[in-house]
């Protein structure tokens, strides 16, 4: 405020600048604006980040499943990160059927052998790849059909009928021992 003007001023930008160093002023204005924007971005970051999963949510990121509880030929559903996971103890027949599908599942081709770690254990997300409903056992392909829009999945969780376009996802999991897997 040291250069307080004493005369009335034109307020439009085209007014003559007098003895003002226009280049210096532009540099100062631009530098101030740039620092201001950078500061605003830094302030915005924590606010945006606060809406991401908190540490308490991340702490629930893994789930151990005891495979002894699942009889041969049956599937059970588990809740992992708020979403269902299907663990299917497949019988010899079911594995054979699934392997046959390697050639006929053309919508999203995948080999059954690549979708399992051990052939008798199929672990897939119970989330329809169309719009997120939970598929139920049944349908014409031995696996699941989705009650919402009629998508069908086979005994390897591969999509066989739309509107879903991709196979049921496989969550990250590993065998802790022969009778336990850890999902997540």
């Amino acid at each position, binding site marked *: 405020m040291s250069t307080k003007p004493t005369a009335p001023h034109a307020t439009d930008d085209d007014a003559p600048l007098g003895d003002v160093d226009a280049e210096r002023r532009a540099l100062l204005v631009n530098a101030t604006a740039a620092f201001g924007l950078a500061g605003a971005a830094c302030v915005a970051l924590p606010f945006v980040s606060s809406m991401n999963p*908190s540490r308490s949510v991340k702490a629930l990121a893994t789930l151990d499943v005891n495979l002894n509880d699942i009889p041969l030929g049956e599937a059970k559903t588990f809740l992992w990160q708020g979403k269902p996971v299907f663990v299917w103890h497949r019988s010899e027949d079911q594995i054979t059927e699934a392997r046959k599908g390697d050639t006929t599942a053309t919508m999203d081709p995948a080999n059954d052998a690549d979708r399992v770690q051990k052939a008798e254990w199929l672990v897939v997300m119970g989330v329809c790849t169309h719009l997120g409903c939970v598929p139920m056992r049944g349908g014409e392909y031995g696996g699941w059909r989705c009650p919402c829009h009629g998508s069908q999945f086979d005994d390897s969780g591969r999509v066989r009928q739309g509107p879903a376009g991709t196979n049921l996802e496989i969550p990250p999991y590993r065998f802790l021992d022969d009778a336990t897997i850890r999902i997540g």
Partner: protein
Amino acid sequence: MAHTPNHPVENDIRNTYQWLEDRLPIISFLNNSVGSNFMAPRNLSYMWNFGSLAGIALVLQILTGIFLAMHYKPDVHMAFDSIQHIMRDVNWGWLIRNLHMVGASFFFIVVYIHMARGLYYGSYKSPREVLWGLGVVIFLLMMATGFLGYVLPWGQMSYWGATVITNLLSVIPFVGPDIVVWLWGGYAVGDPTLNRFFVLHFVLPFVIIAVVVLHIWALHMHGSNNPKGISLTKQTDYIPFHPYYTIKDIFGLGVYLIPFTFMVFYAPEYLGHTDNNIPANPLVTPAHIVPEWYFLPFYAILRAIPIKELGVLAMFGSILILFVLPWLDKHPVRSARFRPLYRPLYMLFLANFILLGWCGMMPAEGIYVRIAQAATAIYFGFFALLPVLSKYEKAKPVPTSI
């Protein structure tokens, strides 16, 4: 503004400014409000920074508050733990909560300085009585919001503060006790109370925003007062708000943020009370219960008077009296600079106000009560003297121009 039939309307959207201007003149509205078309006195000191700082403080409280509300749970069984969840689990939750806590205190600091500025330079006098009154309304809403917010962490101070303050209303004749029960939604501060306090704490800031808009509207009727307190007549006494005062306000903001961020990062709990880190317990009152620091002067007035009803009246009266200040002080000179009696009296009032705050912090016993009683007398004595000063105080010569 009025649309006349002959007024040509820009229909070419490539002339964007005029096109929008003819449909929603929001840019010129902003320009008239806080831009180069708003003329401000050219002699405003840094004391005039605190209005915009208060506005920024309010925005920061709302912003941080919205993000805290996404993680907070207004339930007596979960509230305290959800605060711990925010502090420990939520990404940057500690930062957002510290900003909100320290922000509340700094909001009050800024507003107290803003009010003290108005009191010194006679900014409440004609023709700015409504502007001042709206400011007092904002102050009352802030106090309500601050109180409600302090209850939410559901610590010992939250609980007992809520109990004590809501019980103030029990002094209302006949219906007081019923009103308190209605306010609680039960027979003590409890779950219904916490839930509604959360809702009100969320809503009131938006009411404050509405009153701030009125406050600024009233400001623009006659423009800012100035350190000389005189009504400006010449065009040369004014400079455009933008860029002169926008840049000054931004600089002031930078200075303000230094102590503010220091407190946020290094002493976030300094202005709070450690007892609020103990979960609320309806069976045990803390040995020494105090409100947040910004309520202390008024709390001291409440405790200074040993009769319950009178104490409550005096406490509310000490704030409500600000509404009639423009009619108590009718001295024609605004600025204390030119009032040889008002100026020292004002200084005494400020010092006394701080003394009251100190009394509010001390236990309500012995000498502290005596001091608080004297300070309360001085507080109201100041207002009682103003009509006398209006009549007899001889002002120094007042300049005719800045």
